[in-house]
């Protein structure tokens, strides 16, 4: 079992619904977020291209945040989901520094917080909140080991890329281009 997500940049409109849905689902405090939108414009008017990406933790196979955690609060759950056990976290922030995706933040209650791939939903067989809400249906979630999962089917016949491959983290977010 290997949970992963695909993001279709040809459909994303950058509305930020994934961000609010995560905020209300996971009770993320105002002023913070576990996922976010990146806009990249290339070219000169009128020969332009625009890429919109919904980004979050890459739930890396080789996760520097887990390796550097001094207390074991950052760890890997079943299916490769990287999470933080809040009461074990001392808020040192080493993981924040080590993440090439800037996917973690210091929660005002003193621990480090991040995307959990909605572990509490996934364990019940549901999709993540961001996937379920996306009006363009540009987010796909599932088990990469299952060839018929939404995410496996989404990346099957499409070109895709990962972010910061040079960091060697083996990220599990696939951006369809």
């Amino acid at each position, binding site marked *: 079992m290997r949970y992963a997500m695909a993001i279709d940049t040809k459909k994303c409109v950058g509305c930020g619904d994934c961000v*609010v849905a995560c905020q209300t689902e996971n*009770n993320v405090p105002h002023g913070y977020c576990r996922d976010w939108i990146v806009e990249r414009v290339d070219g000169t008017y009128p020969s*332009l291209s625009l890429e919109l990406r919904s980004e979050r933790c890459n739930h890396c196979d080789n996760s520097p945040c887990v390796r550097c955690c001094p207390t074991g609060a950052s760890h890997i759950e079943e299916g490769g989901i990287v999470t933080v056990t809040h009461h074990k976290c001392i808020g040192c922030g080493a993981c924040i520094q080590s993440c090439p995706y800037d996917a973690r933040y210091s929660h005002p209650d003193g621990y480090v917080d991040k995307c959990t791939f909605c572990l509490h939903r996934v364990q019940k067989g549901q999709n993540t909140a961001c996937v379920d809400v996306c009006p363009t249906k540009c987010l796909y979630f599932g088990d990469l080991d299952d060839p018929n999962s939404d995410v496996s089917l989404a990346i099957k016949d499409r070109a895709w890329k990962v972010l910061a491959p040079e960091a060697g983290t083996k990220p599990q977010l696939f951006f369809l281009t």
Partner: protein
Amino acid sequence: ESKIEGPASDEDLTPYPTYCEVCFWKCAAWAYVDKSGTIRKVIGNKNDPHCNGRLCPRGTGGVGMVYDEDRLKTPLIRDTRKDGSQYFREATWDEALNKVADKMKEVKEKYGPEAFGLFNHGTPGGQFHHLLKAYGSESNAEPAFANCRGPRSSAYFSTFGAYVGSPENTDIRDTKCLVLIGSHIGENMHNSQVQEMSDAIDKGATIITVDPRFSTAAAHSNHWLSIKPATDIALLMAWIHVLVFEELYNKDYVEQYTFGLDYLKDHVKDMTPEWAYGITTIEPEEIRKTARAMAGAAPSVIIHPGRHVVWYGDDTQRGRATAILNALLGAWGKRGGFYFPEGVSVPAFPHPHFPEPKWTWKDWNEGRYPLATMGITTEALKASVPRYNYKHQLKAWLVAGTNLPLSMPDKRLFKEAADAVEFIAVMDTMPMDITGYADVVLPEATYLERYDALRASPNREPNIALRMPAIEPKYDSKPGWWIAKQIGERLGLHDYFNYDDYSEVIDWQLKQLGTSLEEMKKVGVKKYPRKSGPLYLGDDEDFEFNTTTGKIELYSVDFADHGFDAIPKYTKHPEPQPNYYRLIYGRAPMHTFSRTSNNPNLFDLMSENSVWVNPKVADLWELENGQEVWLKNQDGAITSFPVKVRVTERIRWDSVYMVHGFGHSNKKLSRAFGKGASDTEMVTNVMVDPIMGGTGMRGNFITFLTEDPVMEGKEVKA
């Protein structure tokens, strides 16, 4: 603030049905309430055709409307101190309602009930419209008509004898070619349309976007036509020329259903792509190529009618040009084009006949704008100012759910009118810019705390949706229906409000529709079988259109009869002077007009607007990304607040772009006050559509002020 940590399990939450009021799309949803009585999240209703279980960011963030600590909490009454300064004091509901009712009685005696006007928007507006009609006035107007979609209503009605409605009857999910002209789906978050456009992309539909700005939709399109602003009709007429003279139009359809092809053919004979190139800057070959792409997809093709279409004052005619294209392609009444919508007719709760007013909104116009189908807001303002000397004048206003200072162009007119009237009552959930002008402020409960009228918008399948309270109203706020009824009772209009709770009205209506409040509380949305026939025209099916000729009118007999052009003409519009740039404004997907800027969840996504400036222009002015500037327009108006520059290739060098709805001047909006600038302040030149009174707002030009322009008259309202 909630002390809850981490996600709640859905099993511990109770869902209550609602439909969203953060925008006008009105998606049906479930509000999930935890055991402490807190709404934790709002999730789309899977059975709802407006959202298919997926709300947009505003709907998802709708919970922020409830828990915004800046909400209006009690009724307020304007009072004057001994030194003459004014302030709002808290009042009881009884005092506030008596004050409104007393003023309504006074106006009725002195001037007649017609002199009491209503500005309204959204669902609660309907409750006050009912109150006004019972009282004897039909002097109502909403910005949604003349400031927004009115021109397309007149355009499509004159062509097809039908309106495109809301949600629009565009069959995007099955289209093979979608043409967006100044319509930026994805930035306007009209939910099911955004969803269907995404489906169309998956299915390989051709998307053609015409926009001077590289919009999100343009970025997702096969063809982006980066048109010179204000020249759209020339492009549309050239497309018509190509379809007609390359004989690409749907001949059987045009023969059977339309009137006026010969007139049209003669009219467009010189409007070649080469002619249009000199006007629009779009290459002739690109015009031909895109016209052929449309024809290749016909009849599964949509030239989108747009929504906010008040640009240059010839907007009804531009709408006509898109309607004519749709007709030539045979798209109306065809799969992948425009379907025939059907709605549920909800019976009115029994009440006596409304009294007949001596004059209505139609009479403000005094013969101008003969094809207006709703009250024109700018005419309502002029009717409020004695120096315009209108035969029928407004003396007092009720404003329900619309923030006029930011939604009305020509701020001077608005202020003059607001100063001229004797009395203004404002009902809203938030201390908006308009509440500062009120004599009485009535705090409304948010949509998640109240019953409201059933939603029954036409769609592919007729359907209804229920809104019920998920929690009790916070603070001392009250549902719109309650406020309207309380005023009505004080006016002796009990027979028009013959219920104790609005749930009785809904239950009675639902029983007439073969269901009940009990059932609707469980399902939220109920669908009904169609009675009006299939979604589409059958092959060669006889069909009579609701127009003068019974045909789709390529040549509008009605327009000709009223002295308007029967077929659209291209008119050249003013261009910016040196050092000035055309102001283009639009929407961001996470905000609705000016009403969501202070919503804590949505503020997180976008806290202010910026002014988009092409890098070439930025170089010329030595403007840097993130630098604050003030904007000044051709008439010398200056923004109340500075706005940050966004240097981007996504906008042309002759224009700037801003997201509408920022630059709030009410300090009681603790987050949104002074964030960004109001585009509306820059709209002082209004190009009025002679056909239906639309207020064209794209003929305004701005320049940059890099120093704080401290000047008289640049007031910030406390």
